[in-house]
């Protein structure tokens, strides 16, 4: 009884004391929520929504269902073997009459043309012709086949059936050099049409080599920046940051001037008699690496530098006083402590590097084009936003996979510099 009373008393005492501390904590939490609210809103608007939209575009497939709803419904009920029933032909004729001359028919034509080249013209021709037919004499199957013999081919209908559902794997499959055949089986694309897997491999490889080169050049430089006398180090720092502040286009074009056949470097080499004929230094992989390393180097140096600045020189002195050779001390003491910086620098350089397309298109050759080139090409030039999004989604998946792997190995917190 007494014990209970005392417990109650304690509880009452606590609760009597609690309100001010609780409310002040709640207030503090409220303030911090309000403080990050703009950031969350910003990220949602400019990052999460567009990204989600992009991912959705990669599978979205509303064109055919929107323009030709009747025949799209017929296609859902059809087995896909041989030719569809008369009802499908009749629905197609009805849909084409209704959609004639409207933008949605153009969009459906574009979509169907991806499945089978020539579909655009076929639909345009058929839509024009069916308007003249009020009542088909021998049924729509005969009428449509008379307008164009392709309506009598199973492949034409198989393409329509594949393009009818509201979601499609078409773009993602294409981005992986795969095709779905008329029977629904997934096959590799014909050899002369395979292009995106090679490009993706090349993109990742170029990103990897660039990162490695940046690390090899950037690590000693970052070390020099922390150990050199202040005046000299700040001059060096400006040299590192100068390209960072220059326009990407200017930097890239400058490399063309330096490296081209009648450029500065070749002129110097020939005049000094080091080479007889000018070297091929640009419009190939070499030129691309030079330009990319130049642009990405600050992204490697700055994270490493920030970590190195926090490492007290007394650690190395301690390892030396304990009898370690400077090389051993470097490997066992200094290097492990710089790893978070190295990890962050590598990840940043790689992720930015694999997204490049202006630089490869300017200083690279035909064999040096990266995935982003095709993303930009499909997004801007041909307005094939589905394929553009699918390529983007696959590139994003590769980077996420890499991030997860590195995160598992080093720890996400260490990469972000939190730990």
């Amino acid at each position: 009884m007494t014990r209970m009373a005392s417990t109650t008393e304690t509880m009452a005492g606590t609760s009597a004391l609690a309100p001010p501390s609780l409310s002040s904590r709640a207030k503090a939490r409220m303030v911090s929520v309000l403080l990050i609210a703009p950031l969350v809103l910003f990220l949602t608007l400019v990052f999460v929504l567009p990204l989600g939209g992009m991912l959705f575009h990669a599978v979205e497939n509303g064109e055919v269902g929107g323009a030709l709803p009747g025949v799209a419904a017929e296609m859902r009920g059809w087995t896909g073997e041989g030719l569809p029933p008369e009802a499908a032909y009749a629905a197609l004729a009805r849909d084409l009459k209704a959609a004639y001359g409207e933008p949605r028919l153009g969009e459906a034509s574009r979509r169907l043309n991806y499945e089978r080249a020539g579909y655009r013209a076929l639909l345009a021709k058929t839509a024009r012709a069916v308007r003249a037919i009020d009542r088909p004499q021998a049924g729509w199957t005969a009428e449509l086949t008379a307008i164009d013999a392709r309506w009598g081919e199973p492949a034409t209908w198989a393409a329509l059936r594949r393009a009818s559902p509201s979601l499609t794997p078409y773009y993602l499959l294409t981005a992986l050099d795969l095709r779905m055949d008329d029977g629904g089986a997934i096959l590799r694309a014909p050899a002369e049409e395979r292009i995106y897997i090679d490009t993706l491999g090349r993109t990742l490889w170029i990103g990897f080599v660039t990162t490695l080169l940046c690390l090899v050049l950037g690590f000693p430089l970052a070390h020099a920046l922390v150990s050199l006398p202040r005046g000299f180090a700040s001059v060096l720092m400006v040299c590192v940051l100068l390209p960072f502040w220059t326009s990407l286009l200017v930097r890239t074009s400058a490399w063309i001037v330096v490296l081209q056949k009648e450029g500065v470097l070749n002129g110097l080499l020939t005049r000094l008699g080091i080479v007889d004929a000018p070297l091929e230094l640009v419009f190939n992989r070499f030129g691309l690496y030079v330009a990319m390393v130049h642009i990405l180097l600050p992204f490697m140096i700055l994270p490493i530098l920030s970590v190195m600045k926090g490492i007290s020189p007394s650690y190395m002195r301690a390892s030396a006083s304990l009898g370690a050779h400077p090389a051993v001390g470097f490997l066992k003491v200094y290097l492990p402590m710089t790893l978070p910086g190295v990890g962050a620098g590598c990840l940043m350089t790689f992720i930015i590097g694999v997204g490049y397309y202006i630089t490869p298109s300017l200083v690279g050759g035909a064999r040096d084009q990266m995935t982003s080139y095709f993303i930009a090409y499909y997004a801007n030039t041909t307005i094939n936003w589905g394929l553009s999004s699918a390529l983007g989604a696959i590139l994003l998946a590769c980077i996420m996979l890499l991030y997860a792997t590195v995160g598992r190995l080093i720890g996400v917190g260490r990469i972000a510099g939190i730990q």
Partner: protein
Amino acid sequence: MTLHATRIVGCALAVGLLSGPALAQSPAQTEHLTVVGAGGVLQDAERAVFFRPFADASKVQLTEDSYSGQMAKVRAMVDTGSVSWDVLQVEQNSLLSGCEEGLFEKIDWTAVGDRKEFIDEAYSECGVGAFVWSMVMTYDRSRIADGPKSWADFWNVQRWPGKRGLRQTAKMTLEIALLADGVPRGEVYKLLATPAGVDRAFASLDRLKPDILWWTSGAEPIERLASGDVVMSAAFNGRVTAANQSGRTFALAWNGQVLGVDYWAIPKGAKNRATAERFIAFASRPEVQARFPSHIAYGVTNRKANLGIDPALAADLPTNPANFALAVPLDTAFWADHGEALEARFANWRSR
């Protein structure tokens, strides 16, 4: 510092408040028009022949913009209902697909003029032919005295060794490859629509591949021809004539020129549609078009305009009857159907 900043903001606000009503009134008084070209010397010529005279004659406040032919921006404007362009210079295939997908307004041809006065290619549901350009073979006469006469000669690296310039697109390059392989002009597209024809075009390109230097912007072939990096090149005819006018001696070999038309079009939902239509009608008049080739050597779409062109200038135009007879007109409908597949195969072929 803070005080200073506050003062600047205050001034800016005051200026904004004072000028706001004045700005809001102006659209009612003067008509506005935003025309969009492809930039560079082409737009300079358009400015001198079409833009300024139209603005002066009809008291329209004309604003210019330029773009690189990418339809994504037009698509975004139309989709979001914020169309800031009124007249647009577009390529044939963009016009065709854009027209089908509702990116452009339909043209009222009765307001433009008599359709019979124009070349057939100038007519489109959503556009009016602005000028005619051509992808033509060229070489430096100061380096080669007896030059190539056909695309078959262009492929002849034994007789004329050295690099050749071709545009880095399947469009026009595949036609040229078939012409070089001996396909008659009239059968190029019939053949290219078949898988065997496409294989034949790529096989033809295979033979020249080691000697090709690809170009992307129209200025490149001229620069490379001048520097001797290529001995002959496919190039836009207007650029070649412009180079000749500044002292070069580049020859134009018209046999097998691939002919294209650029159009004026009005984006769907353009704010100044009526003014845009008046501009297009103005730019289609024969006496206005006749002045265009003296600024840049592109052909005219209004046949009557040919009469007003200086004969010396007319000889170097793709629409000159003698040159026109040797042309392969670009088949836009073909490229609308097969463009994406062929460009992907072309990119794949090039990277191997």
